């Protein structure tokens, strides 16, 4: 277990443009912390700075409360799993796993024992004499994991470890890694661009975009209360539906004809002017006869067995997606009447995209 603190960490390669801008975060001991963001957002750079593979331009990195900026990677006592696994093709699985253990003064006998134990844990016992090229993708990934675990380092860093696996194996390894981390009580910092991995694995996660922290929090908090439009559209699959809306009198008007009334408190917060309105797909439903709703045209339907994704045209250039439980019989081209659960409406400022928090906004149903 290990505590990792980043205080105002900044990275710049050319001295002019910051790739990472003043990152402040504390990863608690034993925590599974996920860094998530689109490619090029700086998440891998941040991980490599923690590992000591990249220098820190400014700010402080502390491990267990001690400044670690100038420590070499090996002095930081951590393990790392690389995206391409970084296995040595000329060494056997066993040699790969025990590679470098002699530096930590582990005796030959203990190396063997540790390797055996880890291989047993990860189901690699039958493959210890094989070369990496004789293994499947999933097995290679396990060897990379084993190599991290065998060092018994209290902090493990993972750089997109699952992105080279197929979808089915990825789901399996997700759960395996999480179980392993819990069992060994590791502090884990895990980089991914896949929001599903972030949602399913993280104790807490950090969403990065263009080197800026967008939000830090527990997965459900982030999902339910996205801090801005970027997080709203990045986390969740399918993402949150967004549309520009305008305050007119005491109603919000989106796309000229869809209106939703707001309370006085909300109105005061919004002021006059434009906002972005967000709705999660699961909060859009087919309107019952008695409910107010509005007509839309269905553009596409994806039936997934347990749920149905309905894409419909909303306004001139926007398409929204609704997610309904079960197997819907709606057909593309059909006109349907939908209704939005306005208890879950999210409002964002139009300029910066930041969320406008409106505590408990009991507004009446959406009207046409």
């Amino acid at each position, binding site marked *: 277990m290990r505590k990792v603190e980043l205080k105002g960490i900044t990275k710049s390669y050319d001295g002019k443009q910051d790739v990472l801008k003043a990152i402040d975060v504390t990863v608690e001991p034993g925590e599974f912390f996920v860094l998530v963001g689109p490619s090029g957002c700086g998440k891998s750079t941040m991980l490599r700075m923690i590992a000591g593979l990249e220098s820190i331009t400014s700010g402080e990195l502390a491990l267990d409360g001690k400044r670690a900026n100038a420590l070499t990677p090996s002095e930081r006592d951590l393990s790392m799993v690389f995206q391409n696994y970084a296995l040595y093709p000329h060494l056997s699985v066993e040699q790969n796993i025990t590679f470098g253990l002699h*530096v930590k003064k582990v005796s030959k006998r203990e190396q063997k024992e540790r390797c055996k134990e880890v291989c047993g844990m990860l189901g690699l016992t039958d493959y210890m004499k094989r070369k990496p090229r004789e293994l499947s993708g999933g097995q290679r990934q396990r060897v990379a994991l084993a190599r991290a675990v065998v060092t018994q380092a209290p902090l493990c860093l993972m750089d997109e470890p699952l992105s080279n696996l197929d979808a089915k194996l990825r789901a399996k390894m997700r759960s395996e890694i999480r179980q392993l981390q819990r069992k060994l009580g590791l502090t884990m910092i895990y980089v991914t661009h896949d929001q599903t991995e972030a949602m399913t694995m993280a104790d807490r996660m950090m969403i990065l975009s263009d080197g800026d922290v967008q939000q830090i929090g527990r997965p459900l908090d982030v999902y339910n209360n996205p801090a801005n439009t970027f997080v709203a559209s990045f986390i969740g699959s399918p993402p949150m539906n967004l549309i520009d809306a305008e305050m007119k009198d005491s109603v919000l008007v989106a796309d000229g004809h869809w209106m939703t009334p707001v309370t006085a408190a909300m109105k005061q917060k919004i002021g006059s002017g434009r906002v972005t309105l967000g709705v999660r797909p699961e909060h859009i439903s087919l309107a019952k006869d008695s409910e107010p709703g509005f007509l839309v045209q269905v553009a596409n339907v994806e039936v997934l067995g347990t749920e149905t994704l309905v894409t419909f045209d909303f306004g001139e250039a926007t398409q929204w997606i609704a997610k309904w439980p079960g197997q819907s019989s709606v057909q593309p081209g059909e006109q349907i009447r939908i209704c939005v659960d306005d208890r879950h409406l999210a409002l964002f400022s139009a300029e910066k995209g930041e969320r406008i928090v409106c505590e408990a906004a009991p507004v009446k149903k959406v009207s046409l």
Partner: protein
Amino acid sequence: MTTMQHEFTADRQVERKRAWSNWATGMLFLLPSLLLFGVFLFYPMVRTVYLSLFLTDSQGVPIVFVGWENFLNLFQSTSFQISAKATALFVLYTVPAGIVLATALAILANQKLRGIGLFRTMFSATMGMSVAASSVIWMFLFNPSIGLFNRILAALNISGVQWLLDPQYALLSVSIATIWMNTGFAFLILLGGLQNIDQSLYESARIAGVSESCKLRKITLPMLSPTLFFVTTVSLINAFQTFGQIDLLTKGGPMESTNVIVYSIYKDAFINYNVGSASAQAVLLFVTVLVVTVLQFKIGERKVHYQ
């Protein structure tokens, strides 16, 4: 039934016709290289083997079939034995030292430093130089009175060496020049091999904290082994076939000490007009290179780690 059989044979005919036209097209593409290889490689090879079994006149026209006599004469001739020994020594001097030097330079030039491009260009520059030009440079360096080497020795109060004129030093001197000439090529190929090694392997080693020498032994050299193998094979074949610098620097002398086999072939064929013996030597050289290369593939390749 009969119509079906009829249709079947018709299908077969169409297939056969297509296969033939595919073959003809393929051959058409091969024709230019087959023609070139045929005229400049296959025919001379066959002709060499043929001539090695004959006594010839001064024009190289075969006169009497003598069987293995040319070969038997060679094995009994001291001159050929000296030549074979010189060749073996030359290969031994140039190949290992050249490869070690090129590898060391490549590892040095593989650093990420400002201005490293300048060093890379310098180290590979000999590749762009002709054997003739390089030989002239080295001739000046080796010159007993005005050459750089003897001047250095003089500055150190050591008496000068007759680099190219002393039978004791001549082969070594030519070897040194040859190592210099071949370094550029080997360096460039090895640098390419080094740059192909996945950086994350080194990063992983850094996290494990292994030493630089351990990284070199356990990562760099094994990962470079396919490239090293290729460079070794090519260098060996090249070393056996060296001619230019010998002709320009020593002409096989002094006292035949640098009379490597290709130079000996040249002398026999074009100075002594003994084409039969020259052909026999060429055949022996061919067989030697073949055996060495096959052995290298059989033994050396076991130590190569392809990814």
